[in-house]
């Protein structure tokens, strides 16, 4: 059981990261921007775990788990901000939320 090399996983990780970056750039709903950020983080995680398997060292998986925890924290704060913005009856549009005046 050999399977694909680390290079193939890196290609998928690169595609996922570019897809997430595209979503962050073109979408205006902050909810979808957060989802795209998750895709970017997952692309990075895939690269970390692929290298961890390639070099037979567990440290990459530790790093991936830490990234997961940070992503969960980011989602908590981001969703809290989105709910707070929605409660203020502001437009949920990242182009219109250009000032922090509330």
């Amino acid at each position: 059981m050999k399977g694909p090399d680390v290079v193939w996983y890196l290609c998928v990780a690169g595609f996922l990261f570019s897809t997430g970056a595209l979503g962050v750039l073109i979408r205006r709903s902050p909810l979808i921007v957060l989802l795209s950020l998750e895709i970017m983080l997952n692309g990075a995680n895939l690269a970390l775990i692929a290298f961890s398997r390639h070099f037979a060292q567990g440290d990459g998986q530790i790093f991936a788990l830490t990234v997961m925890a940070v992503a969960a924290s980011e989602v908590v704060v981001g969703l809290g901000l989105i709910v707070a913005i929605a409660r203020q009856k502001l437009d949920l549009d990242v182009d219109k939320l250009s000032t922090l005046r509330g």
Partner: protein
Amino acid sequence: MIVASFANVLVWAIWVLAAFACLGSGIAVISFTNPFYASLSLIGNLASLAVMYLLLSAEFVAAAQVLVYAGAVMVMFLFVTAYLGNRADAPWAGAPSWQTLGAVAACSALFVEVIVVVGLKTSGRLSHQGKIDSSFGRPHEIGRLFLTDHLLAFEITSIVLLIAAVGGVILGSHSRDTPTKGVQQ
């Protein structure tokens, strides 16, 4: 020999399926108008990533991915989506603006750059996979690494999670205490 090559083909087949599911659901997340469907596609994306982690013998990370991401984080996303109601945001509607075209060009350039760097600069150097034993990626090994070599990262992660939880509570309760104009109490 035949069994080994069959296993190899099977691993490749599962990998190709997972990779295409991953890429397709990734594109679906950023192109769906309805945020509910986008969140559901992200669950598919995370599940196919978990399959790839299993192929990379990272069993614990795959389990954590399904439990933490597809379980907890996506439930939070779906709750907030339901709370906000249906606010459609059409990404590809109308004529593409120069911003959209520029974003697509920039991200394609990023992807091509990654492929070129991976293809050219690593040729030959990344072909020999290291040997792993059966404990690789198991919870025992992850726990040992977390509590010996990476203890500081472990503690800092716990503090980050605590701060995020407190921040979430403060963000959620603050906007209720201070009504501004236009908010119906």
